[in-house]
């Protein structure tokens, strides 16, 4: 097997692992709260700052609340914020980017506005908006959408600018195809790779940003747990109760890392050359094929060891 193939296999394996981890986190976020016996906001003063034990897997915080429990509840908030921010940014940003890239007149006006938004650091813009609108979940999502939309618009616009000069677009015009069809059936499918990749990264970034906002105290308000707010509350106990900070930090790190790796995997899978005419061979099949390959490789390796 060539080196290149090995590398892509490794990448796919990493991607699949991240996919599995993310699925687990999402499942925990959805069903976890139903399994938990205690509420994440109830105070047990006698259990203050307990180190991790069998009873409290990740230990307890300064109000005696179970950190494992709070992280699982917090996952809901973090994932909802990240996911909605990513989806809204992707949909709105893609539409704006396509329109800006395709219609020259809209381009100038829209891009100057976007440039203006880009002049602010994303996190500062978000803090400003949350401070102005109030710190509930909905407003955090709105603030993050505003913070990340300029990059999305820029990326989609530049793809569109490049693609609209392709001869197949010209052929479509010569065939009398409408502008809407050209935008959404010709340009969008060809620009989808950077869009999906960027969308995944925005998902990760938004989780981080939400954590940062909550850490700074402008995000989700206590006692509702989010990964960022748990981290924020924990910082004064860093020396006496390190587990308090470590576990939410690890949760954020794993989720964000998985999302980034997954974004990379999408980039590879969405290459048009991986399109195949036999419709059966789709992603799912490719995934299982890769898993099969990995297992084969393992068994081969074992054979070598023996």
């Amino acid at each position, binding site marked *: 097997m060539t080196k290149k193939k090995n590398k892509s296999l490794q990448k796919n394996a990493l991607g699949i692992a991240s996919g599995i981890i993310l699925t687990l986190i999402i499942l925990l976020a959805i069903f976890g709260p139903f399994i938990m016996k205690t509420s994440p906001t109830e105070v047990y003063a006698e259990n203050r700052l307990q180190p991790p034990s069998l009873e409290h897997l990740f230990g307890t915080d300064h109000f005696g609340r179970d950190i494992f429990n709070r992280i699982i509840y917090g996952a809901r908030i973090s994932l909802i914020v990240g996911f909605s921010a990513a989806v809204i940014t992707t949909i709105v940003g893609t539409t704006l980017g396509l329109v800006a890239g395709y219609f020259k007149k809209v381009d100038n006006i829209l891009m100057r506005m976007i440039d203006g938004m880009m002049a602010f650091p994303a996190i500062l813009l978000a803090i400003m908006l949350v401070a102005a609108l109030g710190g509930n979940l909905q407003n955090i999502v709105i603030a993050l959408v505003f913070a990340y939309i300029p990059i999305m618009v820029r990326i989609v616009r530049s793809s569109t600018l490049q693609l609209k000069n392709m001869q197949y677009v*010209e052929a479509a015009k010569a*065939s*009398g195809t409408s502008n809407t069809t050209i935008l959404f059936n010709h340009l969008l499918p*060809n620009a989808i790779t950077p869009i999906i990749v960027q969308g995944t990264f925005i998902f990760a970034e938004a989780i981080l940003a939400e954590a940062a906002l909550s850490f700074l105290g402008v995000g989700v308000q206590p006692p509702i747990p989010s990964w960022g707010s748990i981290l924020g509350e924990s910082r004064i106990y860093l020396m006496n109760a390190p587990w308090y900070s470590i576990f939410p930090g690890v949760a954020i790190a794993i989720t964000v890392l998985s999302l980034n790796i997954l974004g990379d995997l999408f980039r590879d899978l969405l290459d048009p050359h991986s399109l195949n005419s036999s419709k059966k061979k789709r992603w799912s099949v490719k995934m299982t094929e890769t898993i099969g390959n990995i297992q084969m490789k393992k068994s081969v390796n074992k054979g070598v060891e023996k």
Partner: protein
Amino acid sequence: MNEVLLEARDVKKHFQANKGFLNRNKSNVKAVDGINLSVRKGETLGLVGESGSGKSTLARLLLRLIEPSNGEILFEGDDICKYNAKKMKQLRRDMQIVFQDPFASLNPRWTIGKIIAEPLLANKSDINVKKKVQELLDTVGLNPEHYNRYPHEFSGGQRQRVGIARAISQNPKLIICDEAVSALDVSIQAQIINLFEDLQQEFNLTYIFIAHDLSVVRHMSNRVAVMYLGKIVEEAECEQLYTSPRHPYTKALLSAIPLPDPLEEQKRQRIVLKGDVPSPMDPPKGCAFHPRCSKADEVCSNKTPALEIDGLTNHAVSCFHPEDQNQKKREVRI
């Protein structure tokens, strides 16, 4: 044969070029600068010229893919530049284009069935699209079962056939071949040229055949127009143009054709033109060709020659010192 299908009258396209942000001097790139051209039904008009002479821009103007800065384009006697969007859409059925690059002209994310069906779907015809596409695939010599394949699964020649199938899907009257064979291997070129000829007979098509390969143009065309810097410098019946070119530029172009016979090839005298094509942003005064022309004199640098037609032979040339038609017939064998 004599009915005119498409006529261009004094068509110009000037692109604006800003020299810089602070320098507000706007200069125009005269890509196409006053072209008169007519194509008769059922004929093939060859359009030759070196890179940057405005051939492709002219093709796009004739299809109204870009708007002309000046002039009229008449299709079957109607000025299409005045058409609104709806009328234009109907007209698009009658005129199609085949592109140079078979890799860029097909959307990599569409199946070839969908690509070929695009003009049909754009005009919402009632026919059975899938059946029609499979017929078209058969017509251009591809396997109808390849309907669901993607472009990257085909070779360059096959892709060009897909492009041709898309162009003929609505039985157009006119097809503009914009360097349609330039990107292909010689053997594939021959196949595609034969396909073009077969289709012309079968569907009574009219072609505007743009190329820089003079031999291919000679093989395909009934009439040939030579372009230089956005203008037509010579236009004549194909054989006449190749046997007795009158414009010095045409002569130089033809002298560049290599001959297959090695002995003849050794004797061939190339007229090597001095310098490069001048920038269309700043074309020379007078005759655009005079800085490179061996016959140029004072008149050439002051006055612009008009395209004058010899009524007897229909041989049009825009030169103050054209080669005499009967003086010496240089046989250029290809």
